């Protein structure tokens, strides 16, 4: 198994495995089809603990963004940017974003999911402008 970031629960691993494979999957309730992100033990809608991992479209719209001017983490020298996207499937996913494209962002700008490699060696999902998607 490739390296993965810190797990916050026993349900995190399939998310990072799917990122490694370049086909992001999210945990989805088997009983009522509500997505759970971050992954967790039960469905906030129906409390079922049954879940499956569904591939997502990778398309979504911008809710907000920021450029951070202070270094908090070794992997992210300042300045660096972060974007918040609501996936077409509903969940909100927050990833880093290319500084040079921040000026092109507006609310509801459509972005596409791509992948990047973290300095620690694992792949992670990352939103980009559609024309940059592989």
């Amino acid at each position, binding site marked *: 198994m490739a390296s993965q*970031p810190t797990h916050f629960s026993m349900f995190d691993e399939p998310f990072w495995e799917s990122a490694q494979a370049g086909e992001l999957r999210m945990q989805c309730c088997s009983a009522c089809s509500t997505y759970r992100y971050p992954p967790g033990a039960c469905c906030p809608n129906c409390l079922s603990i049954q879940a499956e991992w569904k591939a997502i479209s990778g398309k979504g719209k911008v809710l*907000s963004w*920021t450029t951070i*001017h202070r270094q908090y983490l070794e992997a992210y020298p300042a300045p660096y940017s*972060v974007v*918040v996207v609501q996936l077409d499937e509903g969940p909100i996913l927050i990833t*880093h974003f290319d500084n040079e494209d921040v000026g092109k962002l507006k609310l509801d700008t459509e972005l596409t999911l791509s992948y990047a490699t973290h300095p620690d060696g694992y792949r992670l999902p990352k939103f980009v402008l559609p024309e940059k998607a592989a």
Partner: protein
Amino acid sequence: MSSIRSANNIASVVGVGNTDWPQDQKAVRAGARPTDAYGYGAIALQRALKDAGIDKSEVDGLITAPYTPVERAAELYGINPRWASVSDAMQSVLTAVMAIEAGLCEVVALVLGFNQRSAGFKYGGTGTLGAASNLSYVYHEPWGLTSQGALYALMYRRYMELHGTTEADLGQVAVAQRQWASGNPNAVMRKTITIDDYLSSIYVAEPLHIFDYCLINDGGVALIIAEKERAKRITDHPVHIRAIGRADMHDQSTTLKPRLLDFYHPGHTLVSKQVYDAVGMGPHDMDAVQIYDSFSPHIPVALEGFGFCEIGEGCRYIAETGIGPGGGMPVNTSGGHLSESYMQGWNHQIEAVRQARGDAATQVPNCRNVQYISDVVGKVFSIIYGVD
């Protein structure tokens, strides 16, 4: 529809106390450790008891903040309460009132001791404080998002895009609160700033500037809350806890939905109905407001959520009404977390009490009803303090 009863007119604040924030900040910056969290709490408690004019033998309920577990705090403070608990500032006031109403105790000491600066607490990066209760502080670390200020930068960016406001519109908050702090000898940051100072200051997380961020300093705060009739026997100047309301919003909080999509407004609406109905007043009847301000965007968003103005008009309301000294709606009259001291909502409680009883550092004229508002870690709270 759930009940909108709130905890009304059960108890009063009879004493308040706090540590010397600027002196301790100076000492800690010079490398000293004046005391630890328990010690800061002890200083504040001693002063609150003196303010109330009672001995600690009269205290039969004790609440401490999570930094000083209540068992060890009770040992150190020499108090054997009939009832005790641990919680944050707003929940402490509510819990004290509930315990009094339940008949478990009559005189409750609420004590915060907080050594965040000298102990090197972090609010960004690996090991950030509060991660256990709020996964949003750490979950996005693989993508670089760990600082709590960045969450508010994301909120105000979206707010700007939705409502057409600017950085200068938000800058009014830091400028006004520093004006209040300039008249407060116990504020850590007292040098006044202009909008130009604000705009030319560094960004931490765009669009937020350094002046939009709270301080990080050591200190303590204490309140003595007593059952309403007992309070009248203790002091001639009780400040009544006229109403308390709470509503939580935790749905998708790790991915910031309550903050980014809702701006906590549904919670604000529920709590404003609770507290305003309880006292038969509205936002414009308040003489001053204390708003939890870990970051300045809290202010316009909370004001509009509680009906001081329409949604999206928070910045315009601030500009037109004025929230600084002499303004139409005084907000964070001690300088708040941005300029006075970052005591996680606790210094707002004692400032509300002092304004209501008339002995604040910069006193608002004819001040009788003071509202406290907060919306952090999924919890919207409001408390209305008032005098007869």
